[in-house]
């Protein structure tokens, strides 16, 4: 199983993203991070910590579950066979109105998760802007969606699977590509 990103390089990628955020956005007070469940949430917290370490600012952090907004739940009969995915809680304990929302996910692939996340976020208010942070961009987009901050671009074939492991959830930091 080829590891394409180890713990050390993952940490450096996230630190670089934190710097890029600070560089690109003046007035960091108006910024909030929202992680997409499951693995976007710890990533968002780590970036928040990096921003705090560098700029001394506490950035609000939320968690978004997009299950209720998925486009493969109903409609197409072929897709509704199989039990419903588990729903977890969305926790955004702050108003997103007028803020710059940094949406965080682990892997950017078809773009459908991000489409759902955008719909979900907009139900919570009217952010000033939304930017997208992903740890890995593996290509194969099916929707016109592009990340603003990318940890690492990894060219893949659609037959492969990209597996992100994070210490908070999986006990180790690692990204691997499975054949």
């Amino acid at each position, binding site marked *: 199983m080829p590891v394409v990103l180890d713990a050390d390089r993952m940490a450096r990628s996230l630190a670089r993203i934190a710097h890029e955020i600070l560089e690109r956005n003046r007035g960091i007070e108006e910024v909030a991070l929202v992680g997409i469940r499951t693995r976007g949430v710890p990533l968002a917290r780590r970036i928040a910590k990096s921003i705090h370490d560098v700029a001394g600012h506490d950035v609000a952090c939320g968690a978004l*579950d997009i299950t*209720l*907004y998925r486009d493969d*739940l*109903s*409609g197409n009969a072929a897709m*509704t*066979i*199989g*039990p*419903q995915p*588990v*729903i*977890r*809680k*969305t*926790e955004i304990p702050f108003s997103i109105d007028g803020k710059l929302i940094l949406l965080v996910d682990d892997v950017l692939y078809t773009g459908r998760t991000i489409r759902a996340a955008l*719909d*979900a976020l907009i*139900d*919570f*208010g009217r952010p000033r802007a939304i930017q997208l942070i992903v740890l890995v961009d593996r290509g194969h987009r099916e929707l016109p969606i592009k990340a603003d901050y990318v940890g690492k671009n990894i060219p893949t074939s659609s037959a492969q699977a990209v597996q992100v492991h994070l210490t908070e959830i999986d006990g180790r930091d690692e990204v691997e590509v499975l054949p």
Partner: protein
Amino acid sequence: MKKDLLGIADLTPDDIYRVLETADAMREVGRRPIKKVPTLRGKTVVNLFYEPSTRTRTSFEIAEKRLSADTLNVAVSASSVLKGETLVDTAMNIEAMSPDMIVLRHASSGACHLLSRICKSRIINAGDGMHEHPTQALLDAFTIKEHKKDIAGLKIAIVGDLLHSRVLRSNALLLTKLGAELWVCGPPTLVPPGIECLGVRVTTSVDEAVRDADVIMMLRIQQERMQGAFFPSLREYFNVFGMTKERVKLAKPDTIIMHPGPMNRGVEIASDVADGPYSVILEQVANGVAVRMAVLYLLAGGVEDEAAA
């Protein structure tokens, strides 16, 4: 989950926990400024109520709307049922318009099972006669779990009209499945024979049922189902079985008082208990929406048996 939700009897403890966990996430939707998610967009849900209902019907309707389903209510009092149409014919006609789910309340036990056999739509039991009322038991469990964390090992007393109560049957099945110690209490005329089979302890002494209870659940005296004299008078019933402040004191200091509604104040429960600090009766109603959203969501998906096949 199976195709339909006919009763708690068909659910495993894992199914029950899955509903409760999903309901916990669903509750957050009700706290947003925009209380709506697109999950069941394009699904049609028919609420077919053959018995009067305020809470359950409203609760289902709100749950359906929060999930963006198209809902319609068939008010039986203004429908062809009055012209003599049978339940099966009504159901087949509704089915011909291809809804995705039918929420049924009916005065006859087993009505939902009958529809389940003839309908392709998913059937949700919103109360069938004296048999089951599964979503009520699920929302009760959700409410208990919120206050007591773990249901296993709790002493739960259910007091009232045991004979006519579908809420009792669903709750007894559910709470014993999750390992609670369940006591039921009512006048001997309102205790159905063989109720011990549900794994409950039966008593006619309210004090014994309520002593050290973690949860007290009151059941309504269902006068509309009573043909005959089950007890001398409502006043005497209240004196012997009614939940008063004095009786609540016998329970654990952190006990909670529940009632599935509608309440008969001064019959099964004193007003100061119903509105008192131990009462979680309105929380039950609030939780009902989240639990029904969870049930609608879980049933709208595929069936595990099919997926395995």
